[in-house]
């Protein structure tokens, strides 16, 4: 079970700009609004846990803190027995050692690699079996692609793929690293409604098949209802509600 209890001063609130393309600097965020303080405490048991809230509420920062991309000012993050971050004892595992699978909002598939190579890139060498051969990695990458029903894009480059295909490859790549948890940051914000509905079903099915806990950030109520097992509602850097999707969305719509 993932346990998060973190505090972080956020300099300025950020609003995400277009998810389709990023500026060369990689900064697709625009600074806006007043500084605010992120102060959250939540757990994510098995299944799909949703971090739900409006843009700029701090949910993506939570996700990035779990992955180790941003460092909280203080607090503690642990997954089962492993401590990722603990300001009290000075623990702060580097990103590489956290074994998280991250599905980014804009996928961030490596543009110079094919779908298969993208997925194979993420495959970790076995702890005791040593380095996997290239062929074995490709084989495993194919398996993951077919798990998501997109074996046919294996030799395509990201620029040749549709949004839905890219999204599936991104999920396959995240799963390739054999993660202890999968973190998804608004993974469906850049696909059309029809694809979104289909992908939601697939993401849910993939979670159930792999048994890996998913932590899923979204501001879309439909996604909460469709795939959430647990929901944590974050606003202005605070957890304001938690529970199952029905309870939370009922309150939300009142």
């Amino acid at each position: 079970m993932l346990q998060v209890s973190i505090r972080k001063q956020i300099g300025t609130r950020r609003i995400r700009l277009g998810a389709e393309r990023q500026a060369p600097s990689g900064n697709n965020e625009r600074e806006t609004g007043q500084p605010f303080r992120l102060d959250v405490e939540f757990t994510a048991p098995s299944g799909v846990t949703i971090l739900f809230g409006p843009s700029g509420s701090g949910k993506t920062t939570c996700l990035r803190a779990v992955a180790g991309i941003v460092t909280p000012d203080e607090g503690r993050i642990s997954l089962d027995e492993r401590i990722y971050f603990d300001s009290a004892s000075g623990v702060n595992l580097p990103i590489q050692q956290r074994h998280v699978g991250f599905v980014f909002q804009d996928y961030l598939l490596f543009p110079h690699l094919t779908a298969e190579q993208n997925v194979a890139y993420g495959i970790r060498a076995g702890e005791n079996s040593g380095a996997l051969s290239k062929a074995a990695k490709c084989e495993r990458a194919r398996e993951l692609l077919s798990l998501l029903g997109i074996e046919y894009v294996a030799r395509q480059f990201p620029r040749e793929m549709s949004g839905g295909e890219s999204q599936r490859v991104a999920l396959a790549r995240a799963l390739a690293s054999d993660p202890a948890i999968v973190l998804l940051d608004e993974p469906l914000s850049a696909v059309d409604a029809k694809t979104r509905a289909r992908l939601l079903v697939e993401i849910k099915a993939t979670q159930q098949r792999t048994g890996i806990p998913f932590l899923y950030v979204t501001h879309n109520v439909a996604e909460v209802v469709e795939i959430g097992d647990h929901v944590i509602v974050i606003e202005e850097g605070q957890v304001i509600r938690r529970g199952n999707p029905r309870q939370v969305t009922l309150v939300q719509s009142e």
Partner: protein
Amino acid sequence: MNVFGDSMIWPAFKLSILVTLVATCVVVLLGMAFAFVLAKRKFRGRELLDAIVTLPLVLPPTVTGYYLIVLLGRRGVIGSLIYERTGWSITFTWWAAVIAAAVMALPLMVKSARAAIESVNPQYEIASYTLGKSELETFFRITLPLASRGVLAGVVLSFARALGEFGATLMLAGNIPGKTQTMPLAIYEAVVAGENRQAQILALVLTAVSVTAIYLTNKLTGGRAQEL
């Protein structure tokens, strides 16, 4: 007379190619290391380091050459140490021509490579880290391939710059036919000696290389480069 004259072109051409190739290799290795550090590491004096590496781009080449003599000459800061131990001095050897060419070309490599590395979306690197890859592996497998066009443009520019090096080479390596006389120095000597035909041939060769270099750089940095 003509036979003697023509014999000046061939050694100069051979030496130029050798010096330029070795210098370019040095520049690529050093330049990539500088570019990586300047692009990826935040430390005090980073821009100072950038300025020092870039200086030969704006300094008169003879001034750069002068500093190289102060550093590497027989009585130089580093050169004297080498001379005392080994009795050897780098000045007036073809290695001096390599060093002069490398120092003059280094800024172009560092500038191009740094800009190319910095233009790669750092989020790709973060994505690679989440897949368990170290910073070094990420650099070689993600950042460098995505920056390859800019890096290659830097290599081509450096090659062209090293090939054309004159001032600093003259200062540090001298102008010894068959030993340190590269093509640009041979042109100078040919003109001074009134050997217009030789000057013409050498000038045409160097012009052809330069035009090719500009063409390649434009091809590498333009067009599809932005797509990645």
